[in-house]
């Protein structure tokens, strides 16, 4: 077996050194009733060729995004990833390293994390960012929990602009605790009254910008009210490339910014792994969950990096820790950071402008489809459209699959009990979409909806 270096003669020599007859003797502490005498009756080992074939067969059953005009978003976005990103990620010293507990042999990972933290703080407009969380949804839940810890209050108001998976994950995380999630109904038109729901019990308001249905909002008035009432404003960013174009959440008054980082550096990978970004104000840093890389000096006085402020964490604080998180998304954070470094300030802004321009172009083209309405009046690279009162968006999506088009994400997938959302389709356009893609989508929609 190609991953196992020991030979039979090695094993025999080692057993002799240990002083036991066979390997079974080493398992003598396992209760006899639970010992398996031989390998389970399951498929046996296979060569690379056979395994590769099995995966090629499974991959062949899928319609990959590159093989279809593709307009899906709703929390996972398809962007062009520069070739250098993946080539660098595959360097074994990054790929096969553990969490950098031994800083002298982990300066590469630690410096990269320090750069990542700086980049995240810069693009979100915050003072400090951690070394990442599992994904946007779990980062959102952790932000809500942190807000309760900071404010010593228990109520978490979840905007209807928030991705339903973030809502569900946050609700689940608060279940069985003293904290309480208060989700607002889905808000495709940006009409919800958040201010009216705030009170002295509110630890935080969590909003998503751009919203799940695409809308952009100026968060300054909301931030002002939150702060007046002693609540924190948590802003979720599902599409971080948007930060190249709009005022940052930090500039608009956010106290905690969380984001899904998948857009930069990572493919879609059927939705996982993701990358949770987590940024806040300096004054809250000791209430933050997750790992932090920090700058220091070595015994020779040279600048270097270590994991720091770990007295917040489970391996020191155990049941009093700020979170149980241990592993984060190190390699995804590196991918994000490399991609952002390749883009630079100039490229990041240009990529965002390009995405917005593509969405504007898509809106213009879609206006040719009779009965179709774009719902938000402002957006980044994604917006919800209403296909007509009697139309079911999910059925339209299926019919467009038959034409080889991945048209978007029907809102009914998340809100099956909301009939008024059945005609709503969420469509995204990125730098990946050509004009030809858009023309094919429009033609197919015209045909299907007529």
């Amino acid at each position, binding site marked *: 077996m190609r*991953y196992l270096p*020991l030979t039979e003669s090695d094993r025999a020599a*080692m*057993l002799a050194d240990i002083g036991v007859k066979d*390997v079974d003797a080493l398992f003598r*502490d*396992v209760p006899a009733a*639970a010992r398996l005498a031989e390998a*389970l009756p*399951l498929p*046996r*080992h*296979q060569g690379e060729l056979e*395994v590769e074939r099995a995966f090629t*067969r*499974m*991959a062949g059953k899928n*319609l990959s995004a590159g093989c279809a005009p593709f307009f899906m978003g709703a929390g*996972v976005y398809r962007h062009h990833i520069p070739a250098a990103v993946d*080539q*660098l990620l595959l360097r*074994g*010293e990054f790929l096969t390293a553990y*969490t950098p507990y031994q800083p002298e*042999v982990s*300066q*590469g*990972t630690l410096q990269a994390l*320090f750069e990542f933290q700086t980049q995240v703080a810069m693009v979100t407009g915050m003072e400090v960012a951690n070394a990442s969380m*599992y*994904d946007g949804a779990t980062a959102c839940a952790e932000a809500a929990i942190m807000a309760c810890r900071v404010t010593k209050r228990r109520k978490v108001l979840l905007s209807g602009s928030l991705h339903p*998976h973030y809502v569900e994950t946050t609700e*689940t995380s608060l279940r*069985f605790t003293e904290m309480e999630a208060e989700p607002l109904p889905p808000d495709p038109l940006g009409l919800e009254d958040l201010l009216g729901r705030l009170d002295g019990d509110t630890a935080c308001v969590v909003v998503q910008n751009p919203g799940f249905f695409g*809308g952009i909002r100026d968060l300054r008035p909301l931030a002002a009210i939150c702060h007046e009432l002693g609540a924190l404003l948590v802003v979720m960013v599902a599409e971080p490339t948007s930060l190249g174009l709009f005022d940052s959440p930090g500039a608009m008054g956010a106290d905690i910014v969380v984001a*899904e980082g998948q857009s930069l550096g990572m493919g879609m*990978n*059927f*939705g*996982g792994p993701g990358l949770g970004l987590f940024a806040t104000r300096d004054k809250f840093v000791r209430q933050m969950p997750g790992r*932090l890389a920090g*700058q*220091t000096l070595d*015994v020779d006085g040279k600048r270097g990096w*270590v994991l*720091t402020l770990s007295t917040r964490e489970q*391996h020191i604080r155990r*049941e009093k*820790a700020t979170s149980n998180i241990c*592993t984060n998304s*190190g390699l995804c954070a*590196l991918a994000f950071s490399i991609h952002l*470094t390749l883009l*630079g300030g*100039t490229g990041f802004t240009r990529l965002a402008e390009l995405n917005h321009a593509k*969405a*504007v172009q898509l*809106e213009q083209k879609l206006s040719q489809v009779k009965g179709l309405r774009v719902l938000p009046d402002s*957006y980044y690279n994604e917006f919800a459209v209403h296909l007509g009162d009697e139309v079911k968006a999910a059925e339209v999506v299926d019919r467009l699959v038959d034409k080889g088009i*991945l048209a978007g994400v029907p809102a009914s997938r998340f809100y099956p009990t909301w009939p008024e959302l059945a005609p709503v389709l969420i469509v995204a356009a990125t730098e990946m979409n050509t004009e030809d893609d858009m023309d094919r989508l429009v033609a197919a929609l015209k045909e299907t909806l007529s």
Partner: protein
Amino acid sequence: MSETTSFSGNKGLQIEEKLIFEMGNPGAVAVDLPEPGPVDLDRMGGVRKRADLALPDLSEPQVVRHYTRLSQKNYGIDTGFYPLGSCTMKHNPRLSEKVARLPGLADLHPFQPRQTVQGALEVIDQLAWWLKQLTGMPAVAMSPAAGAHGEWCGLMAIRAAHEDSGQGHRRRVLVPESAHGTNPATAAMCGYSVDPIPAKENGRVDLDALKAKLGPDVAALMLTNPNTCGLFESEIIEIAAAVHGAGAYFYCDGANFNAIVGRVKVADLGIDAMHINLHKTFSTPHGGGGPGAGPTVLSAALAPFAPVPYVVSGPDGLELVEGRREGTKPFGRVKGFHGQFGVFVRALAYILSMGADGLRQASSDAVLNANYLQARLGDVLTPSFDGPCMHEALFDDRFLKDTGVTTLDFAKALIDEGYHPMTMYFPLVVHGALLMEPTETESKEALDQFIAVVRGLAEKAKAGAAEDFKAAPRHTPRRRLDETLAARTPILRWKA
């Protein structure tokens, strides 16, 4: 200029590297993007960015060189032996990386209609099948993103089950003192209080002490098996019976599953829930700290409470269940989308490569390698417990008594010898712990070299060379770093 310094600050292949923020010049590009045209302000909601971001501009060659140099300051499994106890740092097969990059698996959106992702659902379903077969458990929640996340999933299922059966008053969770810190932290996140249980002299749970702690307010026992001392809990079946007898559930931390895959079905031990670290046992890369995956197997009693989503077989092929279905009571959703799919692909590639025979051989070799280390080092180091260990060997610092050398010094000296240190000072129940997990992917030759080095260092320490140890490491890009300074004056980002 002395022998040890250079004009550049570099030392041969060790090249000093600035932060990206200290490099670059405005206008340089590493990504050529088309001209976007004028920005349409009508659709911007009045919040167009006013200030430029201070991100540096660099060209591709500069960026590639930067990250290549950073990588050279890291130690990975590809570099050498990584005996980091409890972390299972085994070889990461490159086939797994290759298949994970097939466009038909990597370039898929999680919300594509199911007729377009049958192959992806098959990957999840096949991996779930293997995990159930290997553990003998009837159900598995696939979506947890890491070990600690899987612990949380398991305990949430337990809490939901108790609430459902009118047992919501059970709020105490028993956790051995030797447990990993995530265990008590997880219990606290589910609204539980944590009650530690002591170990016996042989490193196992004290069954009588456990029984004395059980009561009508106990929700669960969280026990790592094999435990964090690298020992199999030999009374585990009696432990499970006692826990169940008291109306509580038995959560097993499966971090050390690599020791027993194919040799023990955890269902036969009476376990109700256990997470499996795919990034340990099934060899997906650790990536400098994630991403991992922590699917959690569940007993029949807990299965109805499994979180969404999960894959089922329907009349039109495989489908994802994302909401509540008849007969189930999911406790919620633990993360976005459908789990760590990219990690699933790699883990399944490893499992298909190894097969049932290879997985059993792997756990056998992992245990053999650890016992070989214990046997060959037992006379110069001080093993904490008698008898065979499982996949990791635990030593304490008695062998360093009166040498002036600490476990930390010893570990840092190993770095100068070209090794990643073992886990230090964990588990907490042993003084100055040194926990070595060689894994099955090390050759006898590699182990023999390591043994010779450790023996040499142990003898050197005993001979009175404390100053040498205190000065280690000497040959790394940075020497010992001041962690107190880092924590007292936190600098967590670059500033202009």
